């Protein structure tokens, strides 16, 4: 009886250690692989609906402003020192103009140095995992989308 209990406890401890390691190390490994401090982020507004929905977990790749292309969903630091995740609609005079798909108006132009990265995409599909952002929000650094929400 005692032996079985001990084996059960050891198995449980190994399981907990494995899960804790996965939770702790996954963001760090991703950060290295994706060349950004913020490899995972949570969508907090509906301005990119329906491509991205509130509480989607997104995977981000760190790229410079000169590497992003029109049509990609990019992440940049906004004037309020927060982050915005919107689609790049055009480039003009060295500035980048973005817009939330669900928004009527374009955002104020930003410079290339404000760009932090872009969302990882597979073909036309933007990498996003519905609802998993709720967990990431509790565990990791949060990227807030500060543009208009509805």
């Amino acid at each position, binding site marked *: 009886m005692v032996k079985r209990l001990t084996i059960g406890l050891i198995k449980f401890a190994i399981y907990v250690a494995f899960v804790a390691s996965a939770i702790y190390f996954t963001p760090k490994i991703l950060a290295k692989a994706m060349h950004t401090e913020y490899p995972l982020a949570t969508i907090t507004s509906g301005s990119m*609906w*329906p491509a991205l*929905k509130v509480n989607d977990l997104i995977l981000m790749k760190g790229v410079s402003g000169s590497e992003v292309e029109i049509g990609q969903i990019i992440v940049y630091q906004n004037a309020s020192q927060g982050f915005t995740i919107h689609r790049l609609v055009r480039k003009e005079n060295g500035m980048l103009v973005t817009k939330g*798909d669900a*928004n009527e108006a374009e955002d104020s132009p930003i410079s290339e140095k404000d760009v932090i990265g872009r969302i990882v995409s597979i073909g036309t599909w933007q990498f996003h995992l519905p609802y998993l952002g709720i967990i990431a929000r509790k565990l990791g650094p949060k990227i807030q989308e500060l543009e208009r929400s*509805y």
Partner: protein
Amino acid sequence: MGKALKIIIWVVVVVVGILLAIQYINAAKYQALVQVIKEDRIGVNPTGDALDFGDLPRNKSAVRTVTLKSDGDTAGYIIIWKFGDISDLLKVNRNYFTLAPHTTEKLEFSLYVPNSAEFRYYKGRTIIFQIPKLW
């Protein structure tokens, strides 16, 4: 696993299942729909048993209300669930709250049609659970 334990688990599962079924049957269920249109006009349909937001163009919103009334002596815990493709567009002003006995609460369902909405019907269902608050 002992036979007695199996029986207890089955009884618990059946009782919980029956309680959930009763709550679902007692819940108020509404069909929710809106037609996104190109023209810049708002078409209002007379509301019956549906949360019908009529015809709405992009970047416009509409509000429908549902009034909850508690006639009994037991407080009710209100939970509102939304289903279907309209659920992304639909917001309710209150959710997960207690409705005290002999009180009323007006729920406002607001629907905003974003710029990226397609020109078509968006449909879904809204279920308002009223669970007797026995705790």
